[in-house]
């Protein structure tokens, strides 16, 4: 069985973010990056399947040179192989452009299962995984909080509104985008990190994958025109008093606002 895990590297959750010169993205110089946390759960889920039997785990990431670190971490955690799509031409792609790149990889690799995170913590579109599944022509589900396999069928619990779960079954090959928290993500061990040095990490461009004309800002139908910090509000109210008083005042306030 072959599992492809899509990983995105995003700014570290503790990084101090500044908006870039033209106001369309953040300044990426000198900030720390990490693997999108949703994706770490996807990777862990793949590694659990690998631990339980025969599976090859392939990790794929699109991004600049710095992404090597994320892929090496994934290899250190136990993935077998990595593909790094590193091509400045891909910059400025919208979700569909990214999905096309990943779909091209998936078509070459023919995985039995594609795992991805529900969304990326930086852009928050949650669009790539369903698009990728559609482009490859396989079924998908999202927000999985539990993944079980028997033969060629996957049974996933999905998180839906109101804390309820929906149970879906999918025929492999398929794609599952996972919710965070569905497993306990392992750390890369020192032995794993040493072993990762010898594992293959292939670098590809959009042209290598035959999608050069479908990516980048030119091909994008969605473009970011501005990002801005939330406006400074003047509606904040400081509730003061002892803990009991604060609690009582908060309840009154919540009721006043009709939120309860």
């Amino acid at each position: 069985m072959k599992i492809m895990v899509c990983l995105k590297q995003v700014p570290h959750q503790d990084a101090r973010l500044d908006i870039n010169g033209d106001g369309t993205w953040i300044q990426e110089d000198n900030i720390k990056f990490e693997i999108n946390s949703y994706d770490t759960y996807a990777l862990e889920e793949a590694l659990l399947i690998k631990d339980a039997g025969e599976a090859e785990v392939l990790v794929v990431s699109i991004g600049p040179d710095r992404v090597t670190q994320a892929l090496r971490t994934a290899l250190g955690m136990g993935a077998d192989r990595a593909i790094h799509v590193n091509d400045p031409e891909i910059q400025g792609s919208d979700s569909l452009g990214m999905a096309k790149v990943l779909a091209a990889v998936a078509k070459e690799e023919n995985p039995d299962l594609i795992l991805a995170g529900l969304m990326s913590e930086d852009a928050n579109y949650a669009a790539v995984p369903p698009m990728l599944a559609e482009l490859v022509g396989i079924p998908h589900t999202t927000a999985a909080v539990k993944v079980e396999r028997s033969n060629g069928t996957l049974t996933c619990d999905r998180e839906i509104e109101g804390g309820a779960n929906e149970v879906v079954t999918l025929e492999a090959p398929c794609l599952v985008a996972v919710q965070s928290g569905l497993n306990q993500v392992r750390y890369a061990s020192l032995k794993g990190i040493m072993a990762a040095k010898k594992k293959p990490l292939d670098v590809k461009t959009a042209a290598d994958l035959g999608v050069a004309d479908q990516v980048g800002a030119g091909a994008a139908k969605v473009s970011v025109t501005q990002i801005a910090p939330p406006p400074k509000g003047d509606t904040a109210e400081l509730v003061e008093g002892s803990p009991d008083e604060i609690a009582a005042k908060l309840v009154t306030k919540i009721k006043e606002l009709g939120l309860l």
Partner: protein
Amino acid sequence: MAGFDGVDFLRLDALLSDEEKLARDSVREFVSREFLPRIQEFVRQDGAFPMDLVPQLAELGLFGANLHGYGCAGMNNVAYGLVMQELERGDSGLRSFASVQGGLVMYPIRTYGSDEQKDRWLPELAAGRAIGCFGLTEPDFGSHAGGMLCRAVRHGDGWLLNGTKRWITNGSVADVALVWARTDAGIRGFLVETDRKGFEARDMKGKFSLRASITSELFLQDVELPEANRLPGAEGLKAPLSCLTQARYGIAWGAIGAAMACYDEVVRYTRDRMVQGGPLAGKQLTQEKLVFMLSEITKAQLLALRVAQLKDQGELHHSMVSLAKRNNVDIALSVARLARDLLGANGIVDDYQAMRHMLNLETVRTYEGTHDVHTLILGKEITGLSAL
């Protein structure tokens, strides 16, 4: 504590390989998420270590990380040093645990042990299924371990051990104690299974320092050992001293971790702490202290990194390790004291890290060769005259 991202003023990261950075970051994350949330609970006890973390520490490969074979990661000494740094960023007790297991128990077995001893102990110790301790210091002999009273005498084909060891990290949780004892032929090392008759370990209480670490006293009364338990390659005091060089090397890095933790905490604190209408960080006296801390940490990093390179090249002299241990622990202690100072009253409670590190570093200054002993080792190196 949240979001600790190291201290790297001179962009030394650029000198590290991918594996070195990955190893550091993985351990850093582990310490932030799994260890630090629990440190307060353990510091409030009197000599206790979160033993339930041992399988995870082993899984991460933290025991004997720079040794090759027998389930060890076989990392280079830069990576190993960075790992020690990150462990001590958590607590000196955590680093001590790994130092003793790897540097003081696994290293001597790997270096001086028989094949049978290696096969029996190294995989178990690497996997954390067995815990080891290192018994050199005695109540009456610390810096001058050569004067030890613990004796091993011939007893049939084997040995009979008698003596007392004191200040032994992990003594009461150990499955195997590496005990150094005097024989007619000089000092020798013995692997003593702690369930042997005549062996007893008692924990030492009332420590102000290294509270999240177990320190014990070992009593050996007519402990019988087969010859197979003696480390065949270890002859004379130079054998235990070579182990100490390993552990001291780790300390030179570990101390940087403790210093970075204090610095990171106090920079954040002084930015937020308002005095006289402005942040404490905006005062000249504060800045002078912060600059001292950053300068000393940076110098210590350079020192450690160079020593690591020399170690990897096989060109490290033990006096270089003395220089690094002596300097880095000393500056870490100064950094911790200054940080404690800037935290004001908050600095004396265990919600903040500075005083815990400061107190820990008092031990680190004393063990593995006291500050002054390293001074005298270096003094001899410079002058050729021993004042020790």
